[in-house]
């Protein structure tokens, strides 16, 4: 009698456990559906005709794939031009960041000079400044340089980030001094030590830096909106916003353009998602 009771009880506990597990997966899956649905809709909508999109009841999946939407987006919207602009800006910003952030990080990590900690604090404190406050004077600076409506107007103010420098400094601090000293004894020049020793050893942090600066640049909106005035120089996000007001009825094309604008980040994310997530878990600039 006692024995069956215990067995029954154990059975009950097991069932509750399974039920809890099912509930957990169910909730997680619902959460996932809410998250993924707009993404899937973006892809499926980009392959529909307008008639399919504006049908009732609403279609979630096209009956046949209309890839010609993608062709039309390039032919009618000149999407390749904006894609080129965005790519150019992104590559330049990444290159500048990959050079300057490790260099400054190295200086702040390994050289002792008066005012070093103050300088570090000063760089970090710029992260607290809201962009709205500096946007007008920054525009005036760019205006003074005669850079309005040029690529460098977008590129140069993003050449370094406080977070990038912070990231590199923290990483380089962990590099043993012995490597540096050994190279110096072997007659390496100071700058050679940087690019022969420090730079290769910092590759894990530099990968994160590349990802972060790519995402930030590729997605940036307000600043390019202000300094890029002619159509020929616009980056993808600005062009997308313009399409939205010009072609607000052509949903399939808007979605095709959106897919293309998200493409590079999505592809990179598919391959390097671990780096993305690790890099961004320590990041404040999540907009």
């Amino acid at each position, binding site marked *: 009698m006692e024995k069956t009771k215990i067995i029954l009880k154990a059975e009950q506990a097991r069932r509750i456990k399974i039920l809890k597990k099912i509930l957990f997966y169910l909730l*997680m899956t619902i959460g996932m559906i809410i998250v*993924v649905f*707009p993404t899937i809709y973006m892809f499926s909508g980009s392959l529909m005709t307008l008639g399919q999109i504006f049908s009732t009841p609403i279609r979630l999946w096209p009956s046949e794939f209309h890839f010609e939407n993608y062709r039309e987006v390039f032919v009618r919207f000149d999407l390749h031009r904006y894609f080129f602009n965005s790519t150019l800006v992104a590559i330049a910003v990444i290159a500048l960041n990959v050079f300057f952030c490790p*260099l400054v990080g190295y200086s702040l990590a390994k*050289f002792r000079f008066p005012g070093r900690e103050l300088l570090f604090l000063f760089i970090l404190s710029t992260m607290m400044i809201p962009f709205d406050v500096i946007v007008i004077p920054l525009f005036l600076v760019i205006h003074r340089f005669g850079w309005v409506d040029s690529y460098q107007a977008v590129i140069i*103010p993003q050449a370094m980030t406080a977070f990038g420098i912070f990231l590199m400094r923290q990483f380089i601090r962990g590099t043993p001094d012995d490597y540096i000293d050994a190279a110096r004894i072997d007659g390496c020049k100071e700058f050679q030590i940087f690019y022969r020793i420090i730079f290769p050893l910092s590759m894990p942090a530099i990968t994160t830096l590349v990802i972060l600066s790519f995402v930030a640049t590729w997605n940036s*909106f307000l600043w390019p909106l202000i300094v890029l005035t002619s159509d020929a120089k616009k980056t993808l996000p600005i062009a997308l*916003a313009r399409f939205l007001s010009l072609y607000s009825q052509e949903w399939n094309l808007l979605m095709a353009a959106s897919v293309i604008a998200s493409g590079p*980040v999505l592809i990179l994310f598919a391959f390097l998602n671990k780096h993305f997530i690790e890099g961004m*878990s320590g990041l404040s600039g999540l907009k």
Partner: protein
Amino acid sequence: MKIWKRYSKREVIYGLIFASPAIIFFGAFYIFPIFRAFQISFYKWDILGTPSYTGLGNFKRLLTLGEFYQSLRASLYYAFGTAVPIWFLAMGFALAFNNKFRFNTSYLVIFYIPVVIPLIVWTILWRLMYHPSYGLLTFVTKPLGLVNIPWLTSSKLAMPSIIILSIWKGTPAYMIIYLAGLTSIPKEYIEAAQIDRATKFQTFRYIIVPLLKPVILYVVIISVIIAFQIFDPFYAMTAGGPGSTTRVVPLFVYQSAFHHLKMGIASAASIIFFSMILILSFILLKVFGFEREE
């Protein structure tokens, strides 16, 4: 000079050479603009002509202007309406993801997609989804008997609609930060609590929360500061409307400066806004800094 003896000449010279790009860069693009912003806020200036000094005129005008108050209110509504739900949702998901379960990483990667795709893409997509008769959301609302909801065109619903988009995009971003904190808590602490028969809630309240304090504080403050600066959806979804119910301060500054060419007014507005954010961050720091333990 005694002080110089503590440093090696080589380190000082090369340290400064290597750091100099940052000194120039942050000086030119951050520090100089901050001072300029203060200066401009005392002038009346349309960028083309010569600026004329008005003293505190711009500030006085803003503070007597109903429009600016409305912007401040819209910003406060948006920032806290977005950040507060995110604090709790992100924590909930972080706790869920902190469990070991099947496909943990796959779920996490999918969950993170909204964060990496440009905000302007989501702005476009959600604007289409919010369409009263053909938007994707009718798929959910129609069975509930709600048709033709004016998501973005009603002055009551426009802000909540943008808030929903922002919560949706923001939650995974902050969840990851919590999760990084959670995984750094030693397993022994949790196990010890379980041996002492602490309930799940007790473990959370008395073990996890105190250990996670710095992370929670960081998320609470950063999420509010960042929400105050969001611009894209207000520009491309509602353009501040209907009326000016969604004209948050960043949009107000942008429009005053680059549409109406009122540089002084825009600068003054940004400075008032900056001070408000600083004060609010300080208050949050006090409230969520918890009392210092003995």
